[in-house]
Each structure stands twice: as structure tokens, then as C-alpha cells.
């Protein structure tokens, strides 16, 4: 099952938002297989719901067309190709060397029920949770300020009446 998901994710191009939605959905299925039901639900709601809708709205709003191909710098090619090769060799060597001692994860191994997650979230991680709420608030205000037109902010609303 993981291999099928692996293949599906491997062959997708990253150049469109729809394939990203496919990746999100398959990841949610993967979380469900691992037994993390809460994380799967949050993945679907937050990523496939909210963030992808934001992306699609922005794409349509700016009517983004085909991207223009441009040549990268020559130095990047010279340095990058050997670097990628060395990195891939290292990773492959590590995987081959360690594959005999790999551990097994059974499907549904995690007791990811919302009750215990909520206990953990609101007892042990209470301070980070509150800090994230402040972060979200700041992000909302920043997004509104950044995305609104500058003249709309500068204009005094009392003079419009």
C-alpha cells in the first residue's frame, strides 16, 4: 500500500496545484493507515481545504499563465550536479547499509484518538498552543494589511461620507 502511494507521489509533477491536492489526499490516507485519525482529519481540513483554496484563489485572481523558462546560473549547474550526485550516493549507501536493521511499523499502530491528543495538547502543550493562536491572529492581520490596496488604507474613511 505504501508502495502504491509512493509511486503515485513519485510520478506527479509539482507544477500544478491539483497534483498537490492529490499529494495531500494520499498523505491523509497514509495517516489514516498509520492510525492517526486526528492528523488525517486536520490534514484534509487545513491543507486540502483551506490552504489549497487559498492557492487556487490566488492563481485565479492573478490569472497566472505559463511560466517563463529561464536559464539558471552556470556556477549553480557546475556545483549542483556533483553535489546532488554525492548526496544521492550518500543517502543510497546509508539506506542499503541500514536496511537490514530496519524496524517494522504495523498498520494502525498509533492510538491517535482525539481524546488523548486533546489531553496532550491542552495539558503539556498549552503554552505553544496559545502562542500559535497569537501567531494566527498576527498572520490574519498581516495578510489583510498586505493584500489590501495601499490607497484603501491611506484614505481616511471619515472623508468619504
Amino acid at each position, binding site marked *: 500500500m505504501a508502495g502504491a502511494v509512493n509511486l503515485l507521489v513519485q510520478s506527479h509533477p509539482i507544477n500544478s496545484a491539483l497534483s498537490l491536492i492529490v499529494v495531500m489526499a494520499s498523505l491523509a490516507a*497514509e495517516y489514516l493507515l498509520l492510525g492517526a485519525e486526528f492528523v488525517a482529519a486536520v490534514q484534509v481540513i487545513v491543507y486540502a481545504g483551506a490552504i489549497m483554496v487559498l492557492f487556487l484563489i490566488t492563481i485565479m485572481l492573478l490569472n497566472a499563465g505559463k511560466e517563463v523558462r529561464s536559464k539558471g546560473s552556470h556556477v549553480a549547474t557546475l556545483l549542483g550536479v556533483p553535489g546532488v550526485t554525492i548526496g544521492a550516493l550518500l543517502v543510497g549507501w546509508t539506506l542499503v547499509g541500514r536496511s537490514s536493521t530496519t524496524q517494522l511499523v504495523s498498520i494502525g499502530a498509533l492510538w491517535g484518538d482525539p481524546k488523548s491528543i486533546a489531553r496532550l495538547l491542552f495539558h503539556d502543550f498549552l503554552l505553544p498552543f496559545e502562542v500559535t493562536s497569537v501567531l494566527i491572529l498576527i498572520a490574519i492581520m498581516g495578510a489583510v494589511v498586505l493584500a489590501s490596496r495601499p490607497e484603501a488604507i491611506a484614505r481616511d474613511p471619515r472623508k468619504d461620507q
Partner: protein
Amino acid sequence: MEIPLSYYLVLSGILFTCGVLGFLIKRNIITIFMSIELMLNGVNLSFVAYAAHWHALSGQVFVFFVMVVAAAESAVGLAIIIAVYRTRETLNVDQVNLLKL
């Protein structure tokens, strides 16, 4: 049915590598942003896989926090993209090379 932990880690690494490649290769600013999201997803997958492996629930809470931060980041980032598009009339990162107008 049991699946080796390394499969999940390899899948997570592939997702992260796709994100890095997209970040480096793509020239559309929205696509670059989407590849950042892909990298975050790869990291989330390894978090959940390790949480399942160690039978620790806090990994899932970290995934939750990562998702929250990703949502905030994407909201602010897309607002910045819209602002850049208003002033520059382009989405190509090669043409956005000045901080001032």
C-alpha cells in the same frame, strides 16, 4: 500487516526532495510557494511515522503545530504575492529583483 519504517522515511524524503527541486527550478512564485508546502508535508509524514514507531503521541501534536504555522505562513505569503503582483505586474521571480519600487 507491517510496513518497514524506512518506507515511510523514504517517501518523506522523496516528498522533501521534490519540494527542494521545485523550489530551486521553478520560476513562478506561486509554484515555489507550493513546493514549500510540499516540503512541510514531507516533514509531517516523517513526524507521524516516527510517532507511530515510538508509540508517542506528541509527534502528532507537533504535526498539528506545523500545520497551523503552515496555514499562517501561506496566508501571509499569498498576501505578499498579491502585493508584489500589484506593484510589479509579474509573477516571475527573475524579474522581482529589487526591494524598492
